[in-house]
């Protein structure tokens, strides 16, 4: 049995006709082609598939889209404003916080949720916020550094830049 669902994803209204048991992860990746959201276990254990629902980190492999109707879903594709990267994305790229990059979308979104509620988190608060997101490459060090840097920059007045974000080398 399939159901028509209306979802708001990254600020756009999208309609999908899917079986009701289809997970949010599957709908995002397979029906909406938003493959930026990754999967590491599909059992809610690794945090890789994290997206934001109304700003809260949610494991999309365990979430049902039917519960997300009328709520705002944000994936990694929704973090940048046009070509301007989110400060977290910028900091992650600059500081080498993404090695293989597979856990990166989930960690970015979890960190974004943290910075919404705690604009200047301590290192320990960052550790606690990210404790549910596994990363096998980085030893977390550069990830913690990048979240700190992004928080710092978001607090400071934004510098004016004409270069498209992501193209500048440093």
């Amino acid at each position: 049995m399939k159901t028509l669902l209306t979802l708001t994803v990254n600020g756009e209204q999208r309609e999908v006709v899917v079986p009701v048991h289809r997970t949010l992860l599957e709908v995002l990746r397979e029906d909406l082609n938003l493959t930026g959201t990754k999967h590491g276990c599909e059992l809610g254990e690794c945090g890789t598939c994290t997206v934001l629902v109304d700003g809260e980190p949610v494991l999309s492999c365990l979430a049902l889209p039917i519960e997300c109707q009328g709520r705002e879903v944000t994936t990694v594709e929704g973090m940048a404003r046009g070509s301007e990267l989110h400060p977290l994305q910028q900091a992650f790229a600059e500081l080498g916080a993404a090695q293989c990059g597979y856990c990166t979308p989930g960690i970015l979104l979890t960190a974004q949720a943290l910075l919404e509620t705690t604009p200047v988190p301590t290192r320990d608060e960052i550790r606690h916020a990210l404790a549910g997101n596994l990363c096998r490459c980085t030893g977390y060090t550069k990830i913690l550094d990048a979240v700190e840097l992004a928080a710092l920059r978001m607090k400071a007045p934004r510098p004016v830049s004409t270069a498209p974000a992501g193209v500048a080398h440093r």
Partner: protein
Amino acid sequence: MKRFSVVGQSLPKIDAWAKVVGETRYADDLVLPRMAHGKLLRSSQPHARIKRIDTARARALPGVYAVITGHDLPRVKFGILPVSQDEEALCVEKVRMVGDALAAVAAIDEETAERATELIEVEYEPLRPLMSIEETLAHPEVRIHEYGDGPNVHKAVSLEFGDVEAAFAEADLVREDAFYFEGNTHLPMEQHAAVAQWGADGKLTLWSSTQTPHYVHRLLAKILDVPQPHIRVIAAPVGGGFGGKLDPFAHEIAACKLSQLTGRPVKITLTREEVFYVHRGRHPVLMWVKTGFKRDGSITGMHFRSWLDGGAYGSYGVASTFYTGALQTVTYKIPAYKFEGARVFTNKPPCGPKRGHGTPQPRFAMECQIDKAAEQLGLDPADMRRRNLVEPFTKTANHLTVTTIGLGECIDRVVEASGWRRKFGQLPPGKGIGIGCSSYLTGAGLAIYWNDMPHSGVVVRADRSGLVAVLCGATDIGQGSDSILAYLVAEVLGIDPKDIRVHPADTDLTPVDLGSYSSRVTLMAGNAVIQAAERLRAKILDAAATKLEVPTERLVMRDRRVFVEGDQDRGMAFAQAVVLAESQLGVLAFPGSYAPPRRAGKYKGGGVGPSPCYSYSACVVEVDVDQETGEVKPAEIWIAHDVGRALNPLLVEGQVEGSIYMGLGEVLMEEQVFRKGVHKIPSMLEYKSPTTLETPEIHTILVEGDDPEGPFGAKEAGQGPLLPVIPAVVNAIASAVGVRIDEIPISPEKVLKALELKRQGKTPRVGPERLPLFTFPAPKVIESAFGQPADTVAERPFSS
């Protein structure tokens, strides 16, 4: 002092931007028109004969396009090493482990494919499963494979360099210790995935999350019985490898065959549980080490024995076996050395290479034994190590050539940074500090199949647009190897890394590189890319020199310009110079090739261990041990790593930090263990790995030098730094609470057991109590090459 413009800078990786916006397309992100989804049926039995497989009900399920068993594939066994051709993609006669693949389905979607696998009927005749080293040696009447160096013995080796018994006779202290290192797995965040498309022209394309597209390419031809030129393998960006994506796998082969039969592209993505069974990870190794020490802490000789639990197949196991005995000799002076090793088959997922491949286990044993000896001799363990370092540019007992060695500085720097002098032996009870040192290859000296061709090939292409493209078969698995190639080309050509495109490994388009293993890419592909870029540079300079009417030697390339040294205005833009060169010569595409110097020892097994150069690391760990619960908490870690020249310090730090993290997981948590043939904990929740909360602050110190073998002097960074953290933690626990845990991972239970023994006045040690009854082959006695000067640098193949 040479001035670098790109080398040595902490630049972002060239693929960082794509990764932070979710643009990077990993294998499972690929979707092709009409694509079918595949699933494998895997064995539920650890050891059984297959009496019958009936796929009729699966075939009848609506939405199923094809079902295959091993009978649909050529009946040919394969394996990554030419000496261990013992695998089948889909087992026909026998299964040797839970998780062995038996059949594969292609269907309209994943759910249908999975349902179809459940409809396949398999009748087994169970055989006795052999689940441990002891059990498999005790039951020679049960045979897992019909080949090897004895019943259930895959490989048994014995080598002696110099007279070890005479060395022990000279010693003031001879120690014998036994250690056990439990197996663990890579746990990459990305589950393996492959998409195969067998075109109507009879040609096959495979996209796969593989670290070794070249080896997959070679083996697919054999496995599928298709001419190799008709196969194209494209490496998708790898979402974490660590050695776990180095073999050809059943899902890749099944996807190809299913695509041929259905006329559709077929994707197979493994589940997390399947990844645990696919494994090829760290071998469980039981070890015995006997070492002679002088009063001053110097080593007179060492005898090392290892028994490896290999699991159900050969995989890289012969190399793993030799690696458990190869690199003991490259850190401290060991004039006489004997190694005996045996790898056995058991009915568990096959072990293979994981970060450090076969060397973290013996390094743990050796560094812990040295600590015990230091205590007995009343020496400071850091000083004892520092005084006995191998001399640079000499050979070891087992004929390995060491070039530069920065281990002395590494030890000094971590001792200084950690406050070792005021902490060692002086911290309050429950707190301790320990040290460990290590070394690792910068690329294996030999390919896994014998040949005289380059280990790494590159083409650098430039054209009138000013674009520079790098074509290389190397695979970026997150370590940043594509970026390293871009930095090196940018350095040579005086342009910006962002002007360079590095293309992913594609066997149709990119010259062969052997793959991302043995920490070889920066050095080997790096040297090849420098050669190619220098050839291009020479042509560009010639063309510009003619135009500017100056001798070539007076020109420099920098800041995207070609100009007369000292007169920036007298010159032209890089792109203009390329136009001149292209006008003169036609297409500008230059090859670079690299093969390591031929230094393998002239004995059987001498091919495992040689490397162009070795990295060195020293690590100090401070731990808190809770004597009530047995819990061990690493409080702080200092590591110094001799990386030669850090081509990009940011990326080197990232490799070091990731290695430390992975070592911590291995020493305190991670274990791949089984009950009745079934993995006890095949999930990311239960297979404990460190989170942000268990990973302490890591202080990374890069010790730089200039190794003559490395590209601009660089050595490896991706594996070596994992090695010292394990013994450093164990030694720190000993200094904290006075107990010795000779078996990892170190669970709270083991610590409590050792503390209890201490309270009872018994030897406060937990570790292996007995060793297997096993007769190693008679040793090959070879003259020790210890202390001999390194050969004057022989002409490297392809160097001119």
